[in-house]
């Protein structure tokens, strides 16, 4: 059974006088899937990721559902009915998110930042937190504040945080955009490996197809139609 199903999922927005539209024609994410979300910059990968993260309301959703924790939730209906709290609770329980740049809270220690998702989901698990920190090679950094960390270290903390509450689905938005290619490879490996250890499905958005190649088992790429008034990107599995 698939973890997330989406069909005809559309988001529209305006930027600098142009209209943008992102559509997922059809998407099925199975538990443990590793999906690469590729395509040029500015095409709407982040928007799509936010849609999958239940962070953005779709303009239209033919079908949009999440099956996790033994239940199937009609996400399209939740968005239609404006059930923002229910969606927040689903995010806390089932979704992990690795932002482009760390996005760590400066006032919490590394450990406090990682523990955030565990607290928000009500699933504290110190042993798993320390195990993750070890796997990501940040165990010694746990008591430190994010400001004293390098960019790469922060990114690994963000990965640990996204995995700490054992989510069903982890979304990463250009997780290696701010590090050099060598480190990027290491971080992606860590993300994939830790994700496998956590048993979650992984969707990584990146314009860098080469670095994702070989690490992911599915890809989602857009067909872009740029016209007079706007840009439309349709994502299809390939």
């Amino acid at each position, binding site marked *: 059974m698939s973890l997330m199903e989406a069909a005809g999922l559309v988001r529209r927005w305006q930027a600098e006088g142009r209209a943008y539209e992102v559509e997922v024609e059809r998407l099925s994410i199975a538990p443990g899937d590793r999906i690469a979300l590729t395509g040029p910059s500015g095409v709407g990968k*982040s928007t799509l990721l*936010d849609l999958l*993260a*239940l*962070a*953005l309301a779709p303009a239209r959703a033919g079908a949009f559902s999440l099956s996790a924790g033994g239940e199937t939730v009609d996400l399209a209906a939740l968005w239609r009915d404006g059930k*923002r*709290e229910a969606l*927040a*609770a*689903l*995010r*806390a*329980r089932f*979704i992990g*998110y690795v*932002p*482009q*740049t*760390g*996005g760590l*809270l*400066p*006032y*919490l220690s590394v450990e*406090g930042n990682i523990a*955030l*998702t565990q*607290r*928000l*989901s009500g699933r504290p698990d110190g042993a798993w937190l320390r195990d993750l920190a070890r796997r990501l090679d940040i165990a010694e950094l746990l008591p430190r504040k994010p400001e004293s960390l390098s960019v790469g270290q922060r990114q690994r903390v963000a990965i640990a945080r996204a995995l700490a509450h054992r989510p069903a689905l982890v979304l990463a*938005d250009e997780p290696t955009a701010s590090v050099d290619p060598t480190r990027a490879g290491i971080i992606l490996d860590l993300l994939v490996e830790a994700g496998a250890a956590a048993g979650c499905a992984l969707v990584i958005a990146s314009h860098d197809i080469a670095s994702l190649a070989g690490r992911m088992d599915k890809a989602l790429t857009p067909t872009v139609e740029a016209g007079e008034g706007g840009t439309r990107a349709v994502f299809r599995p390939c």
Partner: protein
Amino acid sequence: MLSLRLALADLWHEKGLSACFVVALAAILAPLLVLLGLKTGVVDSLRAQLLADPHMREINSLGNRSLSVEAVAEIGRQDGVIFIVPRTRLLAATATLARGDGGNALTAELMPTAPGDPLLAPVAAPGDDGIILTPLAARKLGLAPGDALRLAVQRKLGDQAEGKSLSLTVAGIAPDAAFAREGAFVSIGLLAALEDYRDGRPVPRYGWDGPNAAETRAFAGFRAVAARIEDVAAIAARLEAQGQPVTTRADEIETVLRLDRNLTAIFLIVAAIGGAGFALSLGASLIGHVARKRGELSLLRLMGLSSGGMAGMPMVQGIAITAAGSALALGAYGLAALVINRQFSDGLPGGGAICRLDAVQVVSVLGIALAVALVAATLAGLSAARVEPGEGVRHG
């Protein structure tokens, strides 16, 4: 609670900025506390001075009239009157007092009293065979409570002058404030008997004869006492309206009460301006804080923090800042009050502190500050709860 922890951790992380908020709040609250303390000190001292003078609450009838016992009792039952005693004609109320052993003697004014007389409290009212001396009379006669005393009264009927005397016991010495001159307090029964004798009426209880016929007892006036100084003017007005001319110290009372009202009004105006400034500055600070933290808040929302938890962050911070600011303001007030009270220690009669607050005032000021802060923080909380998930991640 997670948002409580996060909110406090955030405040602690930005100690410098938080300290600015706290100091700004204390800068508004501390002068208000000092102002309220000064108002309280000044007005309370004046009030205490008024209250310390038992004559302040007195309502005395004017001139010599003719009031029945019932009429006096009726006045005593009026709202706000806690004590009343009738009195005889003033001219009839003098007598010669002498030591029981025939020593010193003096002419004293006799005043009526009855049980529960606030003027004599805590000294108990005397019976018909007792007398309470003013301190001056007691000193001149050299008498103490329990000593024997002779009271002599004279009258002139036609060409014939005659007199009677009674043996009384000194039942007590009146407080200093009761009466400053040579005088004595006796029961109204005794005073009425002396008046009857003077007027040439028989006084059977003492076996005194008189040529005039006994008549129904009437009194020339009364001395009443109001429960509170605030009641005096109203009772006096009511009695005047009923055709009872009275004299009171209502003007002096009114001066103090008006000062109290005016100072309170001034304080409220200053407090309203300060409070509005406090609400605006705290509200603006917190909303600005939310705007600045939009990225972080958005991230928390993305990770599934409930909108209640989102709103809780600025609210906890507002309350924490207010609590710390209030504590600082209280400390500053304490220091200022110490300096002011030391500097002006002899500024007020009665020696009371010129700057002081009672617990109720402190709690109310801080309670109002907290309520204002809650309103301001709620606005910030609403703006935090509206932060969308994901709107900040790309900038975070």
